[in-house]
């Protein structure tokens, strides 16, 4: 009985998210275009996330290199560290870690912001002021997350590889040009393109779930907290599921 109720709630929620996504797809290309709000959100979501994303990327590149070194030395393939780190970061670690940090920072902030706007009637006030709040708040934020996450992932990958370069040089000597030569000669188109494309989906997920949870927030401040929390949890789970699906699809079409 309890399982039935849980299943029903899960299906209900999935249906509502699907309807919300459908509304986004229906509204995003129709006028009135909230261009200035879109750019404002790009600044908040993209530019202001850069320090956190950059720092995390740097540490991941550095630590990953330091952790790999002992095993690589044992096998006598120490010179292949840049290649292995490069492929790992660009194919998987960079996109997934950046997306999860992005979900934690931006997903929760969107969920809390829209949730608090909902419970303090700011969304109603917007509607009364001749504004379509869905376009102004949801469409602008979802587009901003969708386009900003790929940019952040690219930057994070570069910073992570720079961290790796420093990591390689802690216990050895590798020149700048040799390091990058090793990284790029071992990377192929199939490593970069699918990894880059999936980040658009990750960004979309973070935006749409954060907005959905905030937009449907209720029960006062408790509801706002719950919206922020569940935005992170649901978008993180969906990021992993999407990643799994993308890997299967790219395998099927020969990009694996």
């Amino acid at each position, binding site marked *: 009985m309890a399982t039935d109720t849980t299943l029903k709630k899960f299906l209900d929620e999935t249906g509502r998210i699907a309807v919300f996504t459908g509304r986004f797809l229906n509204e995003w290309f129709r006028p009135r275009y909230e261009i200035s709000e879109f750019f404002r959100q790009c600044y908040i979501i993209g530019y202001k996330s850069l320090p956190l994303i950059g720092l995390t990327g740097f540490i991941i590149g550095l630590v990953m290199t330091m952790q790999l070194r002992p095993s690589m030395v044992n096998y006598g393939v120490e010179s292949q560290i840049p290649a292995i780190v490069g492929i790992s970061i660009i194919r998987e670690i960079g996109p997934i870690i950046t997306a999860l940090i992005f979900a934690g920072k931006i997903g929760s902030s969107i969920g809390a*912001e829209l949730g*608090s*706007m909902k419970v*303090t*009637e*700011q969304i*109603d*006030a*917007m*509607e*009364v*002021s*001749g*504004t*379509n709040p869905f376009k102004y708040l949801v469409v602008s934020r979802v587009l901003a997350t969708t386009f900003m996450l790929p940019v952040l992932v690219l930057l994070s990958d570069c910073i992570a590889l720079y961290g790796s370069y420093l990591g390689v040089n802690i216990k050895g000597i590798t020149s700048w040009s040799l390091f990058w030569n090793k990284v790029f000669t071992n990377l192929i188109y199939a490593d970069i393109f699918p990894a880059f494309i999936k980040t658009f989906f990750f960004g979309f997920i973070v935006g749409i779930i954060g907005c959905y949870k905030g937009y449907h927030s209720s029960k006062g401040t408790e509801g706002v907290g719950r919206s922020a929390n569940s935005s992170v949890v649901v978008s993180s789970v969906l990021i992993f599921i999407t990643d799994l699906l993308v890997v299967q699809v790219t395998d099927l079409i020969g990009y694996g």
Partner: protein
Amino acid sequence: MADPDSNDTVISGVAPGISRSAPQSKEEVIVISHLYKSFGSNRVLQDFNLTLYKGQNIVVLGKSGSGKSVLIKCIIGLLRPDAGEIFVFGKNVPELNHFALDELRARIGFLFQSNALYDSMTVRDNLEFPLRRHWIQVTQAQVNDMVMEALEDVGLAHTVDMMPVELSGGMRKRIALARTLILKPDIILYDEPTTGLDPITGKEIIDLIVEIQNKYNTASLIISHDMNCVRLASDLVAVLIEGKCYALDTYDRLKSSTDPNVKPFFEQ
């Protein structure tokens, strides 16, 4: 249920008003007829009828959860009624499309119970927001003048560059009122304007409502529990009981009513 012919119930008329001086006309600005609204099995409004004339203030009185806020949200088009008609300036709100509704909303001010000031914007941006969103053709200099005029009306011109979080509860209410006034609306809907304020600040807000009404000759529908507000700001008081407009009369006449459903409201 009250007898409609009784002197204790539905009587039209205009109270002398303590400080109300704006002229009233027989021009109907809001006509609500046979309005129904339910949430699941909870029937909130049932055959609700009310007419508001230009320059008139009606205060809607009712218990918590009796549907007062639902009523004004139906009028502004934030909620869709299950049945019935709401004519605002001759246009039936539930039948309007999005564009027509936005056009109509430019003539209606709405003061939210929670003020609903945008936290991420300054006071100036909060006031400019409705001007810019309603596609009103004005220059930046005119916008500045309109913002300052609205702020001066509420006595808070010095807060123009402050953030809402820096203001006290009473100041926030005044700024929300200034935002409502910026479009010079013909009708203002007030959702519990004095809730959460101390009696002195509450009285200041009531005075401001009356002052604004006198200055701009707006019609107002005020949702309130505050008997001070009911007494000072009303031409007529509508008592909402079981989803219906149970009684509509002046404050003084309702106060002396012996109707057992009406009397408890005035015994505070």
